[in-house]
């Protein structure tokens, strides 16, 4: 029903995903310090975005689908951000009186 995506694009995205998988495995063996996690997650996000945009046709869909496709990820980030504000923030502010 949605406009057909040229098959050429599917093959390209597929190749990109394969290459990115190889990169993510390869780079895991290089010591980048705390950047390792950052790189791994970034590549995963990139791969997921490619799948979303092309295999799942979001790029060719209307704005509403864009909103729905991104809302879940935004809400997940909200959940993580606020929860981590507890775990990370435990050393930031001292309680004036020790809590029970």
């Amino acid at each position: 029903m949605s406009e057909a995506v040229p098959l050429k694009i599917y093959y390209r995205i597929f190749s990109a995903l394969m290459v990115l998988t190889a990169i993510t495995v390869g780079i895991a063996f290089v010591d980048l310090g705390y950047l390792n996690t950052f790189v791994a997650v970034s590549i995963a996000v990139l791969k997921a975005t490619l799948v979303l945009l092309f295999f799942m046709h979001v790029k060719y869909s209307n704005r509403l689908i864009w909103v729905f496709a991104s809302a879940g990820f935004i809400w997940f980030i909200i959940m993580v951000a606020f929860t981590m504000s507890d775990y990370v923030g435990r050393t930031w502010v001292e309680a004036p009186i020790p809590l029970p």
Partner: protein
Amino acid sequence: MSTSSESKHPALADHFIDLKQQYDSAQLGMWSFLLTEVMMFGGLFMCYIVARSQFLEAFVDASHHLSIGLGGFNTIVLIVSSLTMAMAVHSASEGHQKKTFKFLLGTLFLGAVFLGVKYIEYSAKIEHNNIPGDNFEWHGVANPANVELFFGLYFVMTGLHAAHMIIGGGLLIWLMVLNHKGRFSKEFSTPVELVGLYWHFVDIVWIFLFPLLYLIGRHSA
């Protein structure tokens, strides 16, 4: 909004005005469902983040005992299956019944391969008593309790993912039956497209699971 005076399409339900409205609703419904899926896996990733931020050392140690070979192989299998699924959606929307069948079968086969490999991995873990619980054993360097936590997350996350794969397999079989009955055409191939969305989503989950479970601190090995 066209008032359909021409004969009604067999796939059009009573309460929709036309196929376009029905298709739009189905598509939005599927995306809404995927939204809930993101949040459901999101809860697990939340647990993962909290635990990993505290016990990185144990997570590294445990991660080294997962097989990159098998995990990586499965990643490739899933990406290929995503391609075949996309091709199935494409073929169905072009009305190519035979091609659709081939690609659906291919996707199903790759899904089965994935689950087979998962089975091999799980058996190895069971053999080494790496299942959290009373019999848990760990001979690595890190604190066994925290490693147990990692494996708890590992099994719940990959388990939920595998459950989604199994459901996806069922959906593929259902599509193959519909396809066999000749239900899909240029005008109507919504079910294939929706299952496609679902399948790609499950692939996305694995795209995150693979580096987060298998590739932690590999350079320090």
